[in-house]
Structure formats: structure tokens, C-alpha cells
């Protein structure tokens, strides 16, 4: 995303400190991460101390202060998926990608994270890649699913 888009989002909310979460959410959705200089820009435009912007940005799981890989892999670790073996699924994802939850690999191919329950408990355990659900997963199927995401 180019900085003109970011500027546009920030402009929309200029002078409205109550919009902080909305601004960060929009930038995160489009840009997939929140560069520090953008956070400074947000603080200035919304007239909020930079420390408060940083506090909000580190508090919510969705916000990332580092760039994400091309493919965002989430392993659901909700209770139902947990009871149905999400741990082993996560192990397999870590083995295939070589990274742990919260990390991005050196080639920017994958970012892995554990996901909060998305309410598709009946089809768990599942992994979600770039928003696409892969339902009723087993550790053995992980490699096959992930290889399609370059």
C-alpha cells in the first residue's frame, strides 16, 4: 500500500481522538502492519499522545508492528478445536513453516499465529490461510494445504 492511501485514511479521522481504533484498524486491514512513523502520523493527526497510540497498537492482537508474510496462517486454538487436537495441528504448522506463532519467516512467505475462536467449532480443528478456512484438518494434511501458498 502506498503512503497516499494511509494519508487518506488518517485525513478522514483528523481531529477525532475517539477514532483511534478505527484508524489503526483500517490501516492494518489495508497495509497488514503498522509502521512506527505511521503511528507518529496518527498521533499528530488525532491529537493523541504517541504513547497512547503505541499502547493501543500493542494491546490488540490484530495490530502488527512488524511486516507480515505474504500468507497469513492462523491455527484456531479455541476450546473446541483444542479438544479436537489443535495442539498437534499447530505443531505440524510450525514444523512445515519453521516458525512459531507470532513470527514471519525469512522469505516473507508465511506469518503464523494462533487464532481466537471464529465460531466454526463444528468443523474444527481448522487452519485459516488468508481468510480461507481449511476445515477438519489433521496434522498429516498440513503440508499439502500450505504448499499451495507461495
Amino acid at each position, binding site marked *: 500500500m502506498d503512503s497516499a492511501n494511509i494519508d487518506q485514511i488518517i485525513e478522514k479521522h483528523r481531529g477525532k481522538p475517539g477514532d483511534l481504533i478505527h484508524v489503526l484498524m483500517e490501516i492494518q486491514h489495508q497495509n497488514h502492519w503498522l509502521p512506527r512513523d505511521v503511528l*507518529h502520523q496518527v498521533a499528530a493527526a488525532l491529537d493523541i*499522545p504517541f*504513547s*497512547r497510540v*503505541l499502547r493501543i497498537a500493542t*494491546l490488540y492482537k490484530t495490530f502488527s508492528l512488524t511486516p507480515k508474510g505474504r500468507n497469513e496462517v492462523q491455527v484456531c486454538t479455541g476450546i473446541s478445536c483444542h479438544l479436537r487436537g489443535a495442539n498437534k495441528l499447530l505443531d505440524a504448522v510450525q514444523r512445515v513453516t519453521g516458525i512459531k506463532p507470532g513470527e514471519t519467516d525469512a522469505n516473507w512467505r508465511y506469518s503464523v499465529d494462533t487464532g481466537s475462536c471464529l465460531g466454526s467449532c463444528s468443523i474444527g480443528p481448522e487452519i485459516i490461510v488468508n481468510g480461507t478456512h481449511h476445515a477438519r484438518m489433521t496434522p498429516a494434511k498440513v503440508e499439502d494445504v500450505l504448499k499451495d501458498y507461495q
Partner: protein
Amino acid sequence: MQIDGREVKARDDMTVLQAARTAGIHIPTLCHHEKLEPFGACRMCMVEVEARGRKNYVVSCLYPVAQDLVVRTRSERVDKIRRVILEELLAHAPNSPELVALAREYRADRDRFEKDASFCILCGLCVRYCAEVKQKNAVDFIERGARREISFIPEIAAKECWDCQECFALCPTSYAQAAYFLTEALAFPGRRKAGVANA
């Protein structure tokens, strides 16, 4: 109202803690400071209140006074709450003089729980003092839940902190000072007093 069996007069806008202190009755606190808004985080100032026949445990730094309120600042249950909270905090800062003194009073065992690496107890005195009194916001909380910590913001701290450092004295565990100097060492060139630099 009544505190520990004594009749106490209080103004409408007071909290139970203020009323108690005005009457010379001691309630322990860790996150409270007269110059700052009440925070209600350390829960050490919990007391037992009884109103209209119902018993409740509340934090006195936030609970508003009321007519005919009956307050007990010590009871077996209140003491237990304070003891466990102290044991939890001593897992972080086993040698903090303030905590050690309180631990003696409430018979808290500083080795009851597994030790944790950080010695900050997150009372927020530094954060709130910097925001409310100094209005610089050079230090704030980051992260959440068990990962919450205080963090000096290099961009602001580099400009504001050297000449202030007032929060260091408020810190019950000396962590604020350590965190500041760590940030300085990592993120911006510190200023040294001329004499030291030339020595």
C-alpha cells in the same frame, strides 16, 4: 459512617480511603498517590463494607462514602486478600522494602509462588505521574494481560526524561529507573554530567 467501630464524618465527595486517612485510620496502598487519579489496580486497599445488611469487599480508593456505611479495614478475609496479593507481588520483587514491610505485617511468604523475571509490579505510578502531573507521556503501558509492562518511549524520553526523573522516586521497586536507563542505552545517546564524562 463507621470505620473500624469509630464514628467518622466525611464529605460527600470523599472515598472511603480519604475518609479513613482524614480520621487517622491506616489502610495500606501500593498504587495510590495523592496527586494522581485513583487507579484501583493493586487491590491492597480492599476493605469490607456493609450497607443495608449486605457485606461486600471493595477497593477503598474508589469506593464513595455513604451515610451509615460500616467499614472494616481489617478482618480475616481482608487480611487473606492482602496476604495473597503480597505473595503474588513478592514473586516479582522479593526485596522491595515496601513489600517486605507489608509482608511482615500480613505474614506473607515471599517464596510461596514461583519467581518471575520482571521486578515491576505495574502499579502505574510512573505512567500516571508522567501523564497526569508532567503531561509528557514519556512512559506508558504496552502489551496486555500477563505480558503487560511499562515502556519508556524513546522518541519522547530522549527529550523529556533527563531533566525530570521524578518518577524514579515513586517506584516501589526501582524498576522505573532501570527501565529508563535500559531504553536510553538501547535507543538514544544519553547525556552524561560533564564531570563524569571527562573523568
